[in-house]
C-alpha cells in the first residue's frame, strides 16, 4: 500500500510539474483580455441563480477562448459593489466590465468612472440613471413579463373572471410588471379582486394567499408574479382544498416551478421567464466584442416567453440553486 501511494503521489507531482511547464507559457499568452464581472452576492433565490450562471459562463468561456480571463466579484451592498469596481480597474486592470448594479442610483457614478478609464462596459438588468455610459445593455423586460402573464390569464379565462394579484417588493420592477399586466387585461371583464404585496417571498405569499382565500369565495386565477411567491400560494391553496377552482401564474423560471410545468401540473400550467441566466448572455456578448469582427454595441432585451409543458425542458437547469 505505501509503495503504490508513493508512486501515485510521485506521478501526480510529475504530472503537475509537466502541466506547469507546458501550461505556463500558454497562460502568459492567455492574459490578452481580462473581463471583470460584478454582481450582487447570493442573498436570495434569484441572485443565487445569477451567481450560478456567472460561474458556469466563466468556465465555459475561458475554456473556449484561452486568450480571455474572467474574474467575478460579488458584493452584499451598493457601497461594497462600488469598491469592487475600483478594485477591478486598479488591481485587475480589466478591459471590459459586466455589471449587474445593486441599485441604479448609487452605482451610476462608479460605473461612469470605470467607463472613463477606457473600459468596455456592459450593464445588466438594472439600467443606470444616466444614458450613454454603457456600451452594451442586456436586460429582461419587466413590462413584457407582466403583459405576457396578463394575456395568458385573459385568454385562459375567456376574458371573464375574478382574480387576485400578489405583488413583489414595492420597486420600479414591480411597478412595471403590474403596469404591463393591467394593460393586457384592459377592456376584458377580468376583475382584480385585490392586490397585496408579498415581497417576492414564500412566507409572505403563503400568508397573503391564506387571507385572500378567507376573504373571497371564488377566485378564478392568481397572478403571483414570482415563483417564490407562487410556492407559498400553492401551499395555501392546498390547505384550503381549493386546487380545482383556480390556477396560478408565477414568474422568473425557478427549477421547482419549471419541473411542475413539465409534469403538466394543472395548478401551475405555465411560467413566465425572467431568467437569472441573463448574466451569461451578457458575458457571452461581451466576449464577442473581443473575438468577433461584428460590432457589439447597443441594447439586447430578452423576451419573456411563456413556458409551457411543451417547451419547459429548454428552461430547466436541475443543477442551478434557483
Amino acid at each position, binding site marked *: 500500500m505505501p509503495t503504490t501511494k508513493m508512486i501515485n503521489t510521485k506521478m501526480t507531482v510529475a504530472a503537475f510539474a509537466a502541466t506547469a511547464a507546458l501550461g505556463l507559457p500558454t497562460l502568459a499568452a492567455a492574459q490578452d483580455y481580462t473581463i471583470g464581472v460584478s454582481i450582487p*452576492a*447570493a*442573498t*436570495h*433565490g434569484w*441572485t*443565487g*441563480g445569477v*451567481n*450560478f450562471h456567472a460561474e458556469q459562463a466563466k468556465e465555459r468561456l475561458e475554456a473556449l477562448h484561452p486568450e480571455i480571463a474572467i474574474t467575478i466579484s460579488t458584493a452584499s451592498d451598493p457601497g461594497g459593489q462600488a469598491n469592487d469596481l475600483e478594485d477591478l480597474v486598479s488591481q485587475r486592470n480589466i478591459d471590459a466590465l459586466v455589471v449587474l448594479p445593486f441599485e441604479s442610483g448609487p452605482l451610476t457614478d462608479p460605473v461612469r468612472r470605470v467607463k472613463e478609464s477606457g473600459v468596455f462596459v456592459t450593464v445588466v438588468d438594472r439600467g443606470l440613471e444616466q444614458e450613454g455610459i454603457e456600451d452594451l445593455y442586456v436586460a429582461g423586460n419587466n413590462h413584457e413579463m407582466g403583459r405576457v402573464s396578463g394575456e395568458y390569464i385573459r385568454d385562459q379565462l375567456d376574458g371573464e373572471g375574478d382574480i387576485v394579484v400578489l*405583488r413583489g417588493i*414595492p420597486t420600479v420592477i414591480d411597478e412595471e410588471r403590474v403596469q404591463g399586466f393591467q394593460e393586457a387585461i384592459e377592456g376584458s371583464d377580468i376583475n382584480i379582486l*385585490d*392586490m*397585496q*404585496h408579498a415581497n417576492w*417571498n*414564500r*412566507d409572505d405569499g*403563503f*400568508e*397573503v394567499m*391564506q*387571507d*385572500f*382565500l*378567507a*376573504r373571497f369565495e371564488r377566485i378564478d386565477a392568481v397572478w403571483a408574479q414570482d415563483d*417564490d411567491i407562487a*410556492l*407559498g400560494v400553492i*401551499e395555501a391553496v392546498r*390547505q*384550503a382544498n381549493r386546487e380545482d377552482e383556480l390556477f396560478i401564474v408565477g414568474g422568473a423560471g425557478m427549477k*421547482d416551478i419549471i419541473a411542475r410545468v413539465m409534469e403538466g401540473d394543472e395548478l401551475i400550467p405555465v411560467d413566465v421567464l425572467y431568467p437569472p441566466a441573463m448574466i451569461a448572455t451578457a458575458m457571452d456578448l461581451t466576449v464577442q466584442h473581443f473575438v468577433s469582427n461584428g460590432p457589439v454595441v447597443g441594447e439586447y432585451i430578452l423576451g419573456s416567453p411563456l413556458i409551457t409543458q411543451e417547451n419547459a425542458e429548454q428552461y430547466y437547469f436541475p443543477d*442551478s*440553486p*434557483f
Partner: protein
Amino acid sequence: MNSVVPNNKSVARSQASFDLKTWGPFIALMALALLGVLINPAFLGLDNLSNMLTRSAFIGIIAIGATFVITAGGLDLSVGSMAAFIAGVMIILMNSLVEQFGPGLTTILLGIGASLLLGLCAGFINGMVTTKGKIEAFIVTLGTMGIYRSLVTYLADGGTLSLDWGVRDIYRPVYYGSLVGIPIPVLVFLLVAVVGYILLNHTRFGRYCFAIGSNEKVAEYSAIHVDRIKTMTYMLQGVCVALATIIYVPRLGSASGATGVLWELEAIAAVIIGGTVLKGGHGRIWGTVVGAIMLTMIGNILNLTDAISNYLNGTVQGIIIIVAVYLQRASWRKSAP
C-alpha cells in the same frame, strides 16, 4: 395607627394598578379585533381565526423564550437567523437520512432531535460568550445573527433548500393537522406558554430571572449564580427557536437566506407590547402571547381590506404598535405612584 392607614391605601391602589397593567394588552387585543370585524366580517370566520393563530405560533413561541432573556436583563437578536439556520440544517439532514431510513417517522424524529440540540447549543454559545466573555448581549447576538444568516445562505448555495417530497407528505400534519379542532401549532404555542408561565412565575429560576434583571449586582451578592441563570435563559430561548422551527419547516418545506428575516424584532416587539420591561426585571408570559397574536392580527386585518394603500402597511403597523404600548404605559403611569 396613623401610619397604617396610608399603607393600606397604597396597597389597595397598587392592586388596582396591577390589574390595569395585566389587562392592558388584552384590552388592546379586543379593540384591534373589533376593528377587524368592522373592516371585514370575514375576520371572524373560523378559517381566518385559525389561520391567524397558527401563523402567530412561530413568533409567539420565540417570543416566550425572549421574555425570559429580556426579563433577566439580556437581549437576543440572533433568533431569526438562528431559526433559518436550524431549518436549513434540519432539511439537509432529513434529506440525507431518507436514503438510510426512508421517508418515515425515524427520519423526522432525528430531524426534530437535531433541531432541539442545535437550538440548545446555539443558546449556550450566546449565553457563554455574553456572560463569561463579558461582552454586551447586543453585540454578541448581533454577531451570531450575521453568522447564522450567512451560514444558511452558504448551505443553500444562495438558493433555497427544499425538503424531500416523501418526507414532506408525512411531516405535513405537524403544521396543517389539528387535534380536537385546534391546529397543532396553536396547541404547541399554548403548551409552551403554560410551561413558560409556570417556570417564570412559580419557580426559583423565574424569581432569579426577575432578581437579575432588576439589579445584577444585588442578585450576585445574594448568592445567585448570575452567569449560570443568564446562560440558561439563552438556552431556553434556543430551545424555543428550535420548537418554532420544527413547526415552521413542514409549512413550506423550505429554507433560504430570506427565512425568518426580522423575526427577532417581531419577537422583541411582542414581548414589549405584552408589558415586559425592555431593560429587564419584569416579565409577563401571557402579555407576550397577546403581543404575538396582536402583531399577526395587524397584518391579517391589512390583508382583509383594500381601503389602505399597500405602501402604507408599515405605517399602520408602526402606529398601532406605538399606540398599544403607549396606552398600557399611560394607564400604568397614572395609577402607579
